[in-house]
């Protein structure tokens, strides 16, 4: 299966560009444009000026503007709408490319449906309903979303995750969910279908990336209202200018000029790019392999106040590792290491392997084959709570302190007085002590430690700077949890967590008005995932977890939550800076258009033409052209998003205000002057 991810697609991939150009003209249809009040006003203006141009061509009214000029204004007004459409089409195009690949997977397959105890029948996958059970064998495509209820199989999920390594799916537990369209590589499983056709994960994913189900997010709605309000304000300002101009002695007021003024004043830049910003936000998540079920979830991610992070897998590497051998009673460290290694040679647990690795790295002890040296391996049992080996009459054991103590006493040995101090010390630091004995003699202690992921505390530092509180969730006892929390640099921890305490924590935070984000994979995480404002389910997780969350991480990497938050913030910021930029632009546009408009009745107003634009016609046309072109120039920013810096809200705001507010006032002065110079150079004015 093809890699469906868009990671490597450049911003203006020709595969996306060409359809987008076509699409941006198709979107000129009023029923599409009306969804965007700002652009709808521009479109009405374009129609008006075009009609005036046509009228002037057939029967020029006295005192009307030159034909070439009216044509140019209406041409650029049309292109203002086209450019806005283009930004949206490019953003959507990226999703569409992905949806096309996904759709190929949804090819019609046959399913082997189990009849109630009477063998199986072949049906079309689309005929499957919720609750049906089907059999899938090696080489077959799983016909729909469901849970494995019998058997175990390796499944190729690369179509969805892009990850080529097969994953194991088995009945019961947290790895029972399978996705329609993925392929079974080995064995045979029985799957109970959990989604009816058209509602499957794949269907929803296609709809999402295509933008078909895209609804405006709360923030987008509010911003749209603000923009519509500003548009109305400027509409009044421009329309009422007509009687005032007539009062001032202008014989006629050119509708083309009024429309040009209006379009330049209304916030077309943000109005044109707003929808692209939203789509691009979801797309950016997708490229990180996170599937957001709604734009609302992405927006909520930007607002998150508290992050709940599972210790295992997110903060620590997931397994405890041996980090130190502490000998007692004059035993040399080497002989302790040797015994520890021997006891762990056949121990396939991660802890056991880490002991062998430590012995090799620190004391140069090479791994030996258990069978070669004739050792007899004693596996761990819940009864003895020890493991080890018997070799040449030596009985080497390792285990919990009390188990080994009992074992040694039984053999007539004495428990070293040092042991208690050492094991307590290790426990206090968040580690786990393993005591090693040889016969009836205790050799020392192995320090097993939860290893915190590299760079994680820097990441938490970043979050603190963003004003986000991190809470570590762990099943460990409070003492261990505190030690790890300290080392990782999280703000708080929840020890001995159960699904209930986790749920309670979320509700408490929410009662304080905070937004909570968390990750989860198991079925018992589902209620908490549903309760959290942003719930990222792992793709390896159960169907229940995936249903409950509002995002799915296809890579199943819990650390991804951090990126999700940054993308949410980026999306909100991009909207904010472009709004500020758009409004700040108006100052320069006034200085271009107002003197040009009234030059005929009040030639004394000339000093207001501070840009020294060539002529009134050039001034107005330059402003209109700048206004259109700036949309195209800002598409990359809208799609990529402004960079988020965790420097605290105050400095961040100061930075953005300086770049986009002050810059937004200055930039159009330069831009309009440049367009004016070009128009003059090509001899258009």
């Amino acid at each position, binding site marked *: 299966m093809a890699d469906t991810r868009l990671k490597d697609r450049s911003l203006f991939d020709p595969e996306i560009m060409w359809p987008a150009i076509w699409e941006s003209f198709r979107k000129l249809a009023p029923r599409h444009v009306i969804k965007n009040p700002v652009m709808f006003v521009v479109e009405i203006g374009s129609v008006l000026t075009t009609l005036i141009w046509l009228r002037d061509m057939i029967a020029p009214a006295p005192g009307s503007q030159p034909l070439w000029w009216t044509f140019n204004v209406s041409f650029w007004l049309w292109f203002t709408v086209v450019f806005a459409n283009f930004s949206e089409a490019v953003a959507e195009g990226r999703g569409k490319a992905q949806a096309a690949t996904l759709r190929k997977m949804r090819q019609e397959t046959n399913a082997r449906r189990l009849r109630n105890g009477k063998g199986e029948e072949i049906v079309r996958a689309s005929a499957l309903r919720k609750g049906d059970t089907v059999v899938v064998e090696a080489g077959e495509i799983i016909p729909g979303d469901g849970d494995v209820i019998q058997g175990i199989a390796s499944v190729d999920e690369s179509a969805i995750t892009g990850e080529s390594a097969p994953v194991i799916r088995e009945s019961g537990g947290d790895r029972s969910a399978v996705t329609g369209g993925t392929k079974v590589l080995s064995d045979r499983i029985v799957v109970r279908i959990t989604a009816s056709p058209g509602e499957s994960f794949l269907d929803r994913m296609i709809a999402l990336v295509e933008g078909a189900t895209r609804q405006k997010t709360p923030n987008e*709605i*509010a*911003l749209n*209202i*603000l923009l*519509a*309000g*500003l548009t109305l*304000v400027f509409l*009044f*300002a*421009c329309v*009422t*200018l*007509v009687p*005032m*101009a*007539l*009062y*001032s002695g202008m014989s006629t007021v050119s509708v083309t000029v009024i429309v040009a003024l209006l379009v330049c004043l209304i916030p077309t830049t943000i109005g044109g790019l707003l929808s692209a910003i939203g789509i691009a936000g979801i797309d950016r998540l997708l490229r990180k392999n996170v599937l957001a079920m709604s734009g609302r979830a992405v*927006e909520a991610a*930007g*607002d998150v*106040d508290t992050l709940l992070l599972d210790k295992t897998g997110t903060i620590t590497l997931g397994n405890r590792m041996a980090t130190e051998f502490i000998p007692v009673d004059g035993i040399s460290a080497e002989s302790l290491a040797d015994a520890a290694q021997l006891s762990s040679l056949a121990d396939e647990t991660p802890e056991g392997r880490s002991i062998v690795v430590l012995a090799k790295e620190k004391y140069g002890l090479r791994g030996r084959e258990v069978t070669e040296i004739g050792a007899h391996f004693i596996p761990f049992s819940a009864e003895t709570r020890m493991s080890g080996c018997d070799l040449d009459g030596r009985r080497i054991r390792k285990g919990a302190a009390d188990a080994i103590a009992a074992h040694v006493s039984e053999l007539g040995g004495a428990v070293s007085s040092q042991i208690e101090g050492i094991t307590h010390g290790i426990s206090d630091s968040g580690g786990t002590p393993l005591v090693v004995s040889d016969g009836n003699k205790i050799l020392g202690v192995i320090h097993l430690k939860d290893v915190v992921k590299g760079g994680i505390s820097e990441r938490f530092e970043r979050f603190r*700077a*963003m*004003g*986000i*509180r991190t809470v570590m969730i762990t099943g460990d006892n409070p003492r261990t949890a505190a030690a790890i929390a300290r080392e990782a640099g999280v703000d708080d921890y929840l020890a001995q967590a159960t699904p209930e305490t986790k749920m309670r924590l979320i509700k408490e935070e929410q*009662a*304080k*008005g905070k937004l909570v984000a968390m990750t989860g994979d198991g079925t018992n995480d589902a209620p908490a995932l549903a309760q959290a404002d942003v719930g990222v389910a792992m793709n390896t997780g159960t169907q229940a977890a995936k249903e409950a969350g509002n995002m799915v991480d296809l890579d199943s990497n819990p650390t991804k939550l951090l990126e999700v938050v940054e993308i*949410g*913030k*980026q999306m*909100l*910021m991009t909207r*904010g*800076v472009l*709004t*500020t930029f758009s*409004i*700040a632009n108006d*100052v320069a546009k006034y200085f271009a258009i*107002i003197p040009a408009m*009234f030059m005929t009745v*009040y030639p*004394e*107003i000339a000093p*207001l033409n501070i840009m020294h634009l060539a002529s009134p016609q050039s001034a107005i046309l330059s402003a209109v052209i700048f206004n259109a072109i700036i949309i195209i120039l800002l598409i990359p920013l809208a799609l990529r998003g402004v960079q988020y810096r965790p420097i*605290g*809200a*105050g400095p*961040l*705001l*100061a930075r*953005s*205000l300086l770049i*986009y*507010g002050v810059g937004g006032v200055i930039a159009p002065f330069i831009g309009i002057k440049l367009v004016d110079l070009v128009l003059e150079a090509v001899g258009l004015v």
Partner: protein
Amino acid sequence: MTLIGWIQILIFALVILAVTKPIGIYMFRIFEGDRQPLPRFFGPLERLTYRLCGVDPQEQQEWKQYSVAMLLFSAITLLVTYAIERLQHVLPLNPAKLGPVPADLAFGTASSFTTNTNWQAYGGESTMSYLTQMAGLAWHNFISVGVGIGVMLVIARGLTYRLQPGAPRTVGNFWVDLNRSVIYLLMPFSVVVALVLVWQGVLQNFSSYVDVTTLEGAKQTLAMGPTASQIAIKQLGTNGGGFFNVNSSHPFEGGTPLANFLEMVAILAIPAAQTYMYGLMARDTKQGWTLFGAMAILFFMGVTTAYYFEAKPNPVMQGLAVDQTAGNMEGKEVRYGVANSVTWATATTDASNGSVNSMHDSFNPIAGLVPLLNIQLGELIFGGVGAGLYAMLVFVLVAVFIAGLMVGRTPEYLGKKIESREVKLAMLYVLIFPLIILYFSGWSAVAPYSLSSLNNNGPHGLSEILYAFSSAAGNNGSAFAGLNANTPWYNVTQGLTMLMGRYLMMIPVLAIAGCMVGKKAVPESLGTFPTNGTLFVVLLVGVVLIVGALTFFPALALGPIVEHFVALAGKVY
């Protein structure tokens, strides 16, 4: 510009700064304190009023009930005033035997006083009987202020209250707010100011008019009357309706430099103090000082511009035998000079006061633009009593929404999220104001029945029309003069403009309070958009100027701005 002029402006600003905190604390105790100040003194009066009116002061209203009470009260007081005006010929206290006030003027005047505008299209002594003046008009100088304070308190409560989940979303009691603002704030302050003014030689008598022979030998009749008491509430309540026709430029209204100064202070004292009270309500006085800071910057921008241009000679009089070293002295009192005249003009239009001590119509074009623009920004530079703070708070919400996104969070103010409903209401507020001003100004600029009122044509005439409707919509009440406003067209349109500029804008404010009061407040963090500090001051000033002024820029370009360039070119209309 002179050093002494600047020193006076700075002293004025420092005195406003000095009274902000104490009056702010006093106001907080009146409206939000557990016990009101001076309970022995004012308490019985307050309780008596409740008993007479059957008001339960403990009862709390939600925003809709509050709005209904406020609107009903305003409607009834409007009708009462209208009725008194129309029936004054059959009512007592009409020794001059004045006839009924014409319907259009009666409507315009009733609207004017009910809305705290105090636009006067008539000469008081020749139109209104004593009863009309006292029972119809003067009374509004107090209660219309109380209504404004009430609305301001509601939005302040909406933004700052932290309600328990499930608690009723109440925002106060209109009758209590109204009553307290009159008893604890306006009446005692008026008495104090009136006494000081009397000490400074402002008239306060019931004598008949005095005939005198002037030094030049001419005969002159001096008008008398209970002036000081009127002036006090006129200034304190941002009312602005003068006792004499020339308002505070009259020697018996403003008299001494100290009286003039105190009257200026009285314009801005309460509006400035509101910011501190708001800071106390927000449990963070920096929030209040931030608003104060933004207002102060806008004040200085206005006064500096006005002073700079007014200190220049009047271009029209260039070449005539007129000494213009003192600046443009046309329409000014010599004892005030340019500095005190522009400071007053700035203050009276920053606040929706409308009293004048010089003629704004005679200002140089750009200096005259300052009062006009001050009003058009929405009367939020300190602003009217009550009205100024709620106008600024609406702009705060707009500013927080636009810029708040830039820190990567859903915008929040004082921990409460600003969502689409609040944005909708705030935009409604921002929209209504330019709509009514530009709509009626545009109409008046072309209709023959309105143009016949103009004394000037050309850009100055347009400025006069714009000023009239801006003043009405902003409930300011000052006039650019040069426009005969006592015509059916202006009486009716001005009356409507004042009512819309008041109540159509109050409703969204009250509704915002209703939305915000029940919202959960998110605790502040490093990621929270800071709304208390220099950065926000700058941002707020920028948003007020860009959103507020950009709307009017095209119209202003055809009025004062073009007049400036035309006058420089030596052209007169």
